[in-house]
């Protein structure tokens, strides 16, 4: 029963959620659609991955959930990123850059370089 977001590299879902929340506080559904929009439909996050991840992030204190009324006076749980969350995101983004650059370099390396 390993956890896997469809099309999302494992472990990066947390990062993506945090990134999405830097724009504005959002509810679960909003986060999911926003992720799909931004990635031009490449990344599809289903509820089965999203909510456990949200729960995990909240319990770790990286995001904070709050029930608020949304449009047409329905109540929804809005998540916002916390200071530790921002710090984590910053650190992870840096790590991600380093790693993805490195991987990209290896993959694009010419035959001679290999």
């Amino acid at each position, binding site marked *: *029963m390993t*956890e896997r977001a469809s099309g999302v590299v494992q472990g990066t879902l947390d990062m993506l959620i945090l990134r999405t929340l830097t724009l504005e506080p959002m*509810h*679960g*559904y*909003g986060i*999911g*659609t926003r992720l799909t929009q931004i990635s031009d439909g490449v990344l599809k996050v*289903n*509820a*089965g991955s999203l*909510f*456990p991840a949200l*729960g*995990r992030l*909240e*319990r*770790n*204190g*990286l995001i904070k959930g709050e029930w608020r009324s949304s449009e047409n006076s*329905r*109540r*929804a*749980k809005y998540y916002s990123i916390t200071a*530790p969350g921002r710090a984590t995101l910053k650190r992870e983004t840096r790590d991600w850059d380093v790693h993805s650059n490195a991987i990209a370099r290896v993959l694009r390396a010419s035959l001679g370089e290999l």
Partner: protein
Amino acid sequence: MALLHRLLAGVQQLLGRSGDADLELERELDDYLRRAMEQKVTAGMSPGEAERSARLEMGGSEQIKERAREGRWELAIERLSQDVRHASRSLAASKAFTSVSILTLALGIGANTAIFSILDGVILRPLGYPKPDQLMFLSTRSPAVGLTSFWLSPVEYFEFRELNQSFESIGAFHVGEVNLFDGDQPHRVRSAAVDEHLLATLGIPVAQGRLFTNGETNGTLPTTARGQPPPGTQPVVILSHELWQATFGGRPIIGRRLDIEGVSREVIGILPPGVDLMDHRPEVWLPIGLNPADRQNRAGHYLSVVGRLRDGVSVESARAELETLIDTWADRVGVSGEGLAGHTFIPANRTVYRGKRMPNPGHVLQFWPLKDEVIGPATQTIWTLQASVGLVLLIACANLASLFMARADTRRRELAVRTALGATPKRLIQQFMTEGLLLAIVGGALGVIVARTGIAVLVRTYPDSLPRTSGLRIDGGVLLFAAGVAVLSALLFAFAPLIHTRMQGLAAALREGTNRQAGNPRQRARACLVIGEVALAVVLTTAAGLLARSVGNLTSVDVGFNGSRLITFSTTLPPARYPQSAFRAEVYQSMLERLRGIPGVTSVSAMSGLPLEHIVQTMATDFDGYVAGPADPQEFADYTNHVLGNYFQTMGIPILQGRGFEPSDATSSTPVAVVNKTLAETFWKGRDPIGQRLRPCCSPQTPWFTVVGVSADVKEGAIDKKAGTEIYFALDQTASLGTTIGTMHVVVRTTAPFEESAPFIRNVAREIDPTVPIVRLREMSDVLQESIRRPRLLSHTVNIFAGLALLLSWIGTYGLLSYTVTNRRRELGIRVALGASRAAILAQILRWGLALVFLGTVAGVAAAIGLSQFIASLLFGIAATDATTMMAVVVGVMAVGTLACSIPAWRASRVDPLLLIRED
């Protein structure tokens, strides 16, 4: 930070504040679904279609919730409490199983905890002094007279104090009992006569008042013998906390005067609670009255000596120093005389000393840790107890393992259902373990109660049988042990059913359902457990049998006197109030006179040393006409006994030659003595002992005594020791020669029962002197019993354990066979239907069961023989591999086994095929 968040969130969740994470998530998912639906409707779907599609995309909300829960640590606890609830329900459902298991565990863990608390309190716990490892017990050894651990003489003590460099401090003492009169009632209290160095050496502090000051414990007179503090010592006393509380109610007492042995002593101090000295638990501490200036009495050995090693000095280096000291002791202390005046330490390897050849040379000083001296030979007794009780627990665990396997079998259907409903094998195993642990915890808790009761009963039934038992308690360490044993046994028995089923195979095994077979691996494992149980039970029963027969042998030893209908007590006329030894003897005589008037009394006597409790004296004695050759015994008498009244007749000791004492001896001018057979044969071999002369230690003024009779040997020191050489004197004669005896042991032969005579005896004693208590009023047969109390304690306890072991293996064997028969009912029924005779079926089941028992017995006997060396030294008059005992054990265990097998076998033979067919 993140961890803290998780922790707080988890605790909140556990406490049920907003029950809520789940509920909240549900609402969130609800919101998600509705938004997804709205989205789809906006995109042009019909509401019904939108909902179906949204639900499909989202997936089952239960699964999502479950996955969201996975990450929470409190889930483990929730599961645990779920498991515990489930386990309790399932245990409560099978009451018989649960009660048998808990009872078995309570007994097993309880017995182990009880014995461990003894092991802990007696052996493992350090002595209650600061830096106890530095404390050494000093004693002397003299191979020539067969003394392996004897006291020191004051002079030897003084000299060692002055010569050695290894010890920071050394102190001397001797323990005994004294009369204490509190103005109302006479008490006999345990005493320690000590010098001021002893308290400093042990590091005993004072709770109130003060300890002895410098020189306060010294005496001015020559120190002659073990006994009361000599006259001239300071009339002071220090009390134990316990005596102060019990006798004086904890009232202020410093500065008050107490009558101790007829001397009025000022109470100068009270010690803190629990102060002990060599397990003697002294109630009063008196100045010993040694005279450091007196270096005359070199050979009067009566001091116990304890030393504290300097910081950083090892036992080995202190021993090395001691050896060099002993090598040249005589020169160092400037002693050169012959005989007692020249008595000094001589190395044990020196075969020629001062020109004389010595066959058994040596008189050496030695030391070992004080704790070893205190615990002594009890160590082996206690370890034996612990080992036997450990075996009982093993058998109990084997039984429980077997029970658990059977239970796992009968629960297959339940387990299969739960597996089908999604329980993982891991989860099922967890539940097995939870059940085991739950049983172990309840059993362990009950076990601690069993242990408490057990210790109390043991200490009450066998008082003073083991050292240091006064302070036994179940403390944190013991509780930890009990918990450890409980958990370990739970692991042993609860995990056993799973061992032969590998993890991944478990589910499959569980899914087998109710299709049971007699020959399945679990049955085989249970059969092995039964064999093991029987083997362990055989080992334990053999030990129990050997120990019981040892006690039997000890009881049937001819002690040399007739102990039936003989009442004894001790009394001490304090020399301070009765300074004239002749007068003291007269008072004792008049006490005997009055005792004779008690209804039923036929004969009365008194003696200075009570048989079986007589402390070996090894008195230097001149035997006229005896010259010790190099290999001959030295001129020592092991015991001397000063007696009054018709001693030999009262005690029932036969006079083999000559005569016993007569009243006319008291006034006769010829000092007379009676010797025992061993002494006559040792020193006057081949000669007529009657008329021979002897002269006891230690001064030239002592007259020669003429031997008038030879008595049969009496076991003076202990039942399992040789009688030794003994000289009897008539106290009414020796008292006029100046012999002072502290305590006299009176024996009364009567035809009346003890309960009837006792009040009369107490009355007589009170009439003689109301300030003098009579102590240890008991029947002589009790003295005999008490002298073998440790072997009896060991034998009785191990026998109880063996009984428990037999019972448990009976249950184990019976359980396995019953279960097998139940399982094979169908097969047996078919065979009956096909014409098998009931006798054949009975024989088959019986054969199978007995084969197991037999295998176990064989293994057990082999193990018992292999282990025999460990018990050999605890036995008396029987070999550790005694064939009769082994045979008896084999027969006994086989009988128990047959009994266990025959009921299930009989049931098997009664199987009714028709009933079976109807059952399906």
